[in-house]
């Protein structure tokens, strides 16, 4: 299955969006908390400066709106190459992260050549615990 969008985010929720914190936020947090050593900090800042030069800063993010950003897979080979060392840094510090692929990230409120910014719903959606699943013998387990 081919996907249009990809996002790297953490287990922790960003306070402004309630969604998983983005990779740049996570790395900056490790620096602010003095978790990253001086060399790794220098490496991340070099990575970050490349993105600052190449990747537009979405206006909704500048306005601190409740949005999360996804790379566009079709135009993001170079972005993913350049972000890989940042993922390595997160692994180095045992900081969990997830790589999310999707074709429907939600309501797109900003778009450029490389990324989209997606509006975060105002309400958190929850689902009840799922009581049904298929057993190995093919029968349906009813919880």
């Amino acid at each position: 299955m081919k996907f249009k969008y990809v996002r790297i985010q953490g287990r922790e929720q960003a306070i402004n969006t309630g969604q998983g914190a983005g990779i740049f936020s996570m790395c900056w947090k490790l620096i602010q908390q003095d978790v990253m050593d001086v060399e790794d900090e220098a490496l991340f800042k070099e990575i970050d400066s490349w993105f600052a030069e190449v990747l537009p800063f979405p206006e909704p993010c500048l306005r601190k709106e409740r949005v999360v950003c996804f790379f566009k897979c079709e135009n993001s080979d170079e972005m993913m190459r350049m972000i890989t060392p940042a993922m390595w840094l997160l692994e180095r510090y045992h900081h969990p992260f997830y790589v999310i692929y999707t074709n429907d990230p939600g309501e797109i409120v900003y778009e450029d050549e490389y990324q989209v910014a997606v509006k975060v719903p105002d309400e958190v959606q929850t689902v009840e615990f799922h009581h049904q699943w298929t057993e190995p013998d093919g029968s349906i387990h009813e919880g």
Partner: protein
Amino acid sequence: MSHVIKRDGDSLTVQVFGRLDINTAPELEAELVPQLEGVSTLTIDLAQVNYVSSMGLRLLLSLQKRMAKQGSMVVTNVSPEVMELFEETGFAAILTIV
């Protein structure tokens, strides 16, 4: 001696020795960067390098970024140990390694 820099027209070759880390990378950068003016091909020879730290990776990335604007950069003679680091960190896909 931690490095030797040789210029041949618009090509520059840097031979690095030993470690490329927080102690050696800043010194190399301070000497190398001013010499990149007018350089279109930069070769980083790591034949004698046995260790690259994150500071070394930072320097390589910085040089790669600079040279992408004015020409090209290749990294040569990478040892298996350093290559393993490049692959683990994603630098194998960022750098041009020959």
